[in-house]
């Protein structure tokens, strides 16, 4: 019955593409999480009244974040071609999409991280200072744990954006469900392949959303 609705869908290819999409998503979410938290912390800590208050450093980071957020993803891929080529020796395949995916979404996530950190009760930071905590202790034992639900729901939103970016990256031959939909579906006018890929992507998005919501709820003891 399914073969009637999807005559041109090759399940073998579908699974390979799904694997590539998941691979790109996982690695880029991980990279975005780390880079975004670093940038977000830097934005937060150098802000007025905070631990590393530093107006010029704050402005520099803010400009980098805002500029890279303003660049459309598809253009960012093209701009990063030389960098990717240098780094990986290729501009094709799932790995080649990773630099653009991470650079494209980390600044967005950094803003979410900063917003989450700002929500941390100043009184709690002050209590930690009064106990004689080092800045490192305040970052790892107060700021990050206390903002964790926001950091998790932020990375969930970002991950979903990343899944759609991986599909876009398919257009330049990164592989994955987007690539399959474009090459096998759109180019050859096989609408059933486009539909199947869409369904797979939607399911992946739902799973990510579900896991993200679940974790963020689990760890929120407020």
């Amino acid at each position: 019955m399914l073969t009637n609705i999807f005559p041109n869908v090759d399940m073998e290819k579908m699974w390979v593409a799904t694997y590539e999409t998941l691979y790109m998503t996982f690695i880029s979410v991980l990279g975005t999480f780390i880079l975004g938290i670093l940038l977000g912390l830097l934005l937060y800590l150098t802000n007025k009244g905070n631990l590393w208050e530093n107006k010029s450093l704050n402005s520099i980071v803010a400009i980098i974040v805002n500029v890279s957020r303003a660049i459309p993803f598809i253009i960012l891929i093209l701009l990063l071609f030389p960098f990717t080529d240098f780094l990986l020796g290729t501009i094709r395949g799932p790995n080649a999409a990773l630099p653009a995916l991470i650079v494209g979404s980390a600044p967005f996530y950094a803003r979410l991280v900063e917003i989450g950190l700002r929500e941390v009760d100043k009184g709690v930071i002050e209590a930690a200072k009064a106990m004689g905590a080092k800045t490192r202790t305040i970052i790892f034992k107060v700021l990050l744990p206390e903002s964790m639900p926001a950091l998790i729901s932020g990375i969930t939103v970002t991950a979903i954006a990343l899944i759609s970016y991986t599909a876009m990256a398919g257009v330049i031959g990164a592989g994955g469900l987007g690539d399959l939909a474009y090459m096998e579906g759109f180019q050859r006018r096989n609408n059933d392949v486009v539909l199947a890929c869409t369904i797979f992507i939607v399911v992946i998005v739902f799973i990510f959303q579900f896991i993200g919501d679940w974790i963020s709820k689990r760890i929120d003891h407020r």
Partner: protein
Amino acid sequence: MITINNLSKTFKTKDHTVQAVDDVSIDIEKGDIYGVIGYSGAGKSTFVRLINRLEDPTDGEIILNGQDMTDLSKAQLRLERQKIGMIFQHFNLLWSRTVYENIAFPLEIAGIPKANREEKVLELIELVGLKGRENSYPSQLSGGQKQRVGIARSLANDPKVLLCDEATSALDPETTDDILDLLVSINEKLDLTIILITHEMHVIQKICHRVAVMEQGHVVEQGDVLDVFMNPQSKTTKRFVQQLNPQEGSVEELKDFITSDERSKVVKLHFVGHNAKRALISDVSKQFDINVNILQGSISPTQEGAYGTLYVEFQGEPETIEDVMNYVKTTGVGVEVIDHVD
């Protein structure tokens, strides 16, 4: 134990400067519960935050156990802060940690190995009466319980001093009293010096030995709680004392009892310190052949004994009344005949 000399703090903002603490000098002895009272904006929080250098003073010195807090390096200051406990109006607990983990936090900061933390944490949980709530999160606790966690946390590294900034101001009156009782028992058990900031006279009355009254950054009056209460000098102090004795203002109502009759006298009794606990009135009416008519008054218990005033009417033979007054004087209670009301 703590000597504060000419301490000042000026806040400079774009368009104006605020002299939050202005030339404050205070001496606090070991084991004291020292209260600082003042209205909102008087500079109390700034004062207490200067002691552990959460604010840097503009001028003056803070000498804690012979160590000037103002000339410590950053690393030394962190070590020193581990020996100064602090509790807050809004408790400032980490919601991401359980009661147990919150209390263990200062031990982690002090670098105590995990194995050695447990005994201390459990001992503190016992001390503040939270046994069985180790694994609760702050959001599952009442305000009073949260403050108990705050107190346990502040005691984790065996501090020499405990700073309390409006520690009971977010609590209802009954819970406030429970927390104050806990502070007194800690003060006695651990011989811990406590500096307590409040805008509530009740708190000072209930647990402080000594008090300083703050107004616009200045200390306008300081000394033993009873002395300051008995003889308030400044207007602010008088207003605070009034809070405790709302009836004092209504001496007017005594008018009807004041007559030229020799067989009736209206008398103001002044209780200070421990004699206020005596059953003076029943003593008098048993020993002498007179009637005692209680008109009005109030007695406020303080850490250093009670204090207060009581207006009574003595009815009897003029000589007996005279004897009674002499007897009352020998008990240390102040006596004053009221023959007119102005």
